[in-house]
């Protein structure tokens, strides 16, 4: 099956029905492995003790928060440029998931910050830009809920998503200059990761598990959205239908 075939919502539904069980199984296995590695293989930090385990949720959630926005950006391009019939469904389905990952990364970050920095929240560049990302997600969801017609809503949201995609890096760099406390990047660096393999491997497995979780949730949410639109079409058709009884009465 070519990728283009998935553009057809019915084919997509069939594809999801076939793939979803395997994807769910794979996600469960990845999480089991990731959690095992994180709790029993990765050593406690000599300074932070067991609190360092928060990292195995915090970092993948933060990655996924951005990955999800990237997905929405691609989908928005699909909506505006290629008018792909499924792309605004993809964008709409991704937004709440992205907001949830963003929220999880903020929540775990602040729980981690309390023992590390002595406060739940600081107006650090990294934290602030993620908070702005969360507000962006909420705004997109709100815009979607305000416009009743899904096609019109999809276009409006796609424009806002793309503007946000341009603006987020700017926000990121500007708040970097504004205030910084968060530790610098330590996994993806030109000179190789700076953290020990016993921590790196569990982290990568957890990241894989989170990505799989996102894929599963995204497919399910897209399926729900397609069904929701079908229900809407059926309802509109049902409303337009002239009831047989009424015409019979009028004919009397």
């Amino acid at each position, binding site marked *: 099956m070519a990728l283009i075939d998935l553009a057809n919502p019915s084919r997509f539904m069939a594809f999801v029905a076939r793939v979803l069980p395997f994807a769910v199984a794979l996600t469960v296995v990845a999480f089991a492995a990731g959690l095992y590695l994180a709790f029993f293989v990765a050593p406690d930090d000599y300074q932070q003790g067991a609190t360092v385990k928060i990292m195995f949720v915090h970092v993948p959630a933060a990655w996924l928060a951005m990955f999800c926005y990237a997905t929405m950006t691609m989908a928005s391009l699909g909506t505006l440029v290629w008018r792909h019939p499924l792309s605004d469904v993809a964008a709409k389905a991704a937004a709440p998931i992205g907001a949830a990952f963003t929220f999880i990364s903020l929540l775990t970050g*602040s729980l981690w910050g309390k023992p590390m920095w002595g*406060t*739940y*929240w*600081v*107006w*650090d560049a990294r934290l*602030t830009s993620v*908070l*702005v990302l969360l*507000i962006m997600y*909420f*705004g997109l969801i*709100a815009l979607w*809920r*305000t*416009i*009743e017609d899904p096609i019109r809503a999809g276009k409006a949201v796609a424009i806002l998503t793309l503007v946000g995609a341009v603006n987020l890096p700017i926000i990121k760099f500007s708040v970097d200059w*504004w*205030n910084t406390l968060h530790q610098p990047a330590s996994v993806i660096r030109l000179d190789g990761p700076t953290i020990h393999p016993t921590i790196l491997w569990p982290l990568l497995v957890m990241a894989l598990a989170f990505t799989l979780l996102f894929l599963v949730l995204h497919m399910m949410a897209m399926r729900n959205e397609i069904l929701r639109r079908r229900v809407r079409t059926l309802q509109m058709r049902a409303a337009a239908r002239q009831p047989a009884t009424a015409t019979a009465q009028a004919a009397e």
Partner: protein
Amino acid sequence: MTGWAQALILRELRLAVRVGGGALIGVLFFLAVVTVIPFGVGPDLNLLALIGPAILWIGALLATLLGLDRLFQADRDDGSLDLMLMSGRSVELIVLVKCLAHWVGTGLPLVVAAPVLAIFLNLDALAIGAVTLTLLAGTPALTLIGAIGAALTVSLRRGGLLLAVLVVPLTIPVLIFGVSAASAAITQPMPFLTPFLILCALTLLSSVIGPLAAAAALRHSGD
């Protein structure tokens, strides 16, 4: 409560949560306002803790005012307001019930969100409790006073901005006693209860003046 009031509350709440209702946009605005303040005043946590109650109160005030412009206008635009005025129910009570439903839909979420936002502003547990309590007691007054502005601007195309201009001066007492009660809880020597009780009194007073004035304005909105 009588049947018609229940029916009205149910309708308003349904409208608020369904598509196009915008029940949670007020909370989002609240979040956005509280987020941009530190960019203006700087990220100094001690300073933020000091002015935190004021930030939360001003955020709640702005979020309430912005949500109010559709309170009567939506009903006027589709002819519902006409039918309400000739429904045989007391217009004052209709306003009161609509304000109650509006507060549950927009004001109460602000109160619920306030403790989370207070963490961003580095407030301690006592201060968080005090701010939330004052918001719980004070935001109904904001809605009720704002309803006067909403009724006065109901027939205007660009009523929203004018509404804010009309209402902000009237809400100053609420803001003063709300913030001073919350600040009193942080800086111990001052009493919390005195300004808090005045705040409660303001809410009760506005629950009388607000519906009376708004109903008078609505009755004269017809042309």
